[in-house]
């Protein structure tokens, strides 16, 4: 069934993809065999984009996306509010992202990775200067705490509002704002203080 859905999707949306979130969530809860494929089709790109921007690594983002949906489908029976399917998906995504960032942070501590080492972010495109800038950007994000990093990524890379972030992370608005303030201060310090960064305002930008 999943294959059929995918083949149809190559040309045009199938009737199933016209379903609203409530109907889709109800189908998931009821264990309809087509529901996981339809949910994946609707939300996988959202989760992947969020994960790849937050992590700066598309391979890790693929793993996170798969983990999110594996857990979500395995626990779809726990979805109590069918009208909140999107929030349900995003909550899973945030939880797995937190877990992944903590795992990476612990890994860095255990392997004693020097803070000056840059992560190997396999961004597409052949421009070495842009890749270098991005590696430095994500190295700066690596220095943030998990919560600060996610709040910063959602706010600045996904353009979410503080209220939306507070809702999905189950934090108070003031905690979110404080976390964001700390993150922005740290990233600004990096931008100003990194002598090797080819600053965009002063002429770097998207390098060619």
């Amino acid at each position, binding site marked *: 069934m*999943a*294959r059929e859905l*995918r*083949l149809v999707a*190559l040309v045009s949306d199938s009737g199933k993809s016209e379903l609203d979130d409530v109907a889709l969530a109800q189908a998931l809860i009821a264990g309809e065999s087509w529901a*996981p*494929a339809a949910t*994946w*089709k609707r939300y*996988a*790109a959202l989760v*992947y*984009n969020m994960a*790849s*921007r937050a992590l*700066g690594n*598309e391979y890790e983002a*693929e793993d996170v*996306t*798969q983990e999110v*949906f*594996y857990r979500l*489908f*395995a626990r779809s029976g726990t979805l109590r509010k069918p009208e909140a399917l999107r929030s349900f998906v995003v909550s899973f995504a945030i939880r797995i992202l937190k877990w992944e960032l903590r795992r990476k942070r612990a890994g860095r501590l255990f392997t004693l990775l020097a803070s000056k080492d840059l992560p190997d972010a396999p*961004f*597409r*495109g*052949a421009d*070495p*200067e*842009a890749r270098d*800038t*991005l590696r430095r*950007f*994500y190295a700066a994000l690596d220095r943030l705490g998990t919560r600060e990093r996610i709040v910063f990524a959602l*706010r*600045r*890379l996904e*353009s979410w*509002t*503080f*209220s*939306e972030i507070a809702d999905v992370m189950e934090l108070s608005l003031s905690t979110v704002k404080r976390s964001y303030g700390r993150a*922005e201060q740290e*990233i*600004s310090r990096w*931008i100003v203080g990194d002598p090797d960064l*080819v*600053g*965009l*305002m*002063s*002429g*770097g*930008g*998207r*390098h*060619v």
Partner: protein
Amino acid sequence: MCEEITPVEPRMAAVLDLARSAVAPMSLAQSEAGFDVVSARLGARKRRQSRNHRLLFAGASAAAVLAIGISFVHFRQTEPCQAPLGYWVEGGQLVEGGYLRASDPAGVRLRFVEGTEVRLPVETRGRLLSVDDKGARFAIEQGLATVSVVPRPEAQWLFDAGPFLVAVHGTVFTVDWDGPSERLDVRLDKGLVSVKGPLSKEPIVIRAGQQLSVDLKKKEVRLQEMETAALAGSVVLEKDAPAAPAERPKEAATSAEPRARERAAARSWAAALAAGDVDFVLADAERRGISHVMAHATSESLAALADAARYRRKYDLARAALLAQRDRFAGSRRAEEAAFLLGRVEEANERASGKASETSKAETSRAETNKAIDWYDRYLKESPRGAYASEALGRKMVATWSLQGASAARPLSEDYLHLFPHGTYAGAARALADKP
């Protein structure tokens, strides 16, 4: 929920734009593979649960799982051979009759799951005729298409351009058909294509670095090296030719030994650059003699040298190579792009000139930023739809902002958002537009 996102410092906005634009959207291939993994894990989970609950029927369950597994493997082995290639459209939509309609000013892209891509600018009219498991057939009814075909065994990609049929294997090329003047141009960056059509009984084979131009009205077929084509006197290899002209260009190419040597150097510099061996390019240029290189190197060599010099922040050398490109290959695509790159070099040089005294530094900085703006203007004038148009306008906006302030740059930010609402500098443009 309608809380506004406050603007950030322009340099951070640009870094954030870069981070956003670096993430390619999830491809259909990634999506399909990802869902397969999730499905397999869920299947395994279900099987584990089933095993725990039904120990008494373990034998029967194992047999059933095995049977499902075998049929699944069989399905996986046979199905992909028959299923047509998946594809999707970016920057537009596929409408009735298979026509691609662009909604993005940058044009529309037709992308296939195995990596092949067809790009059409807004003014090009083209349509998808058919898709199967080996490839697709696409008709260019008017205008230019840029095609990148991923090589695969038994792949079959066909492009109709007026009365011509271009058969492709693995390659990157552009095909331009102008119906009213009955003129076809095919430029091949790499790989091999063959073109069937009037004026030649046998298919015309085009190799990497060659350009085929056919003028049906004049009954003229030209096959020439692309760099030669950029110069004035191109060689007419075939005119009203009935026989296979595929091997003729070799003769033309061997007539100029030094040019062939320069082309070989160009290939090796481009390859070295692609492999990240920037220092090899610079050292080899030094070894050959910089002035000799500037006077005799091919267009491709000059482009590679300019890139290598920019990456190593040797801005004087980069500037010299780019100016030589514009001077010696005026009118070519690389010469036009050199204008944009010269702007980048001036900006980069302005950053690097921090050794001068404070007063002279400010003056130098203003002069270099002004030069950069001039080059961006020139590029935008020469190539308003060029590959770097978005970058050039974005850089011009940022440079104007830093030099003349927000009010001078604001009209540019409005232009930018109008032309490139999702461009790299859209964040900076919005921040500028919102600035009081």
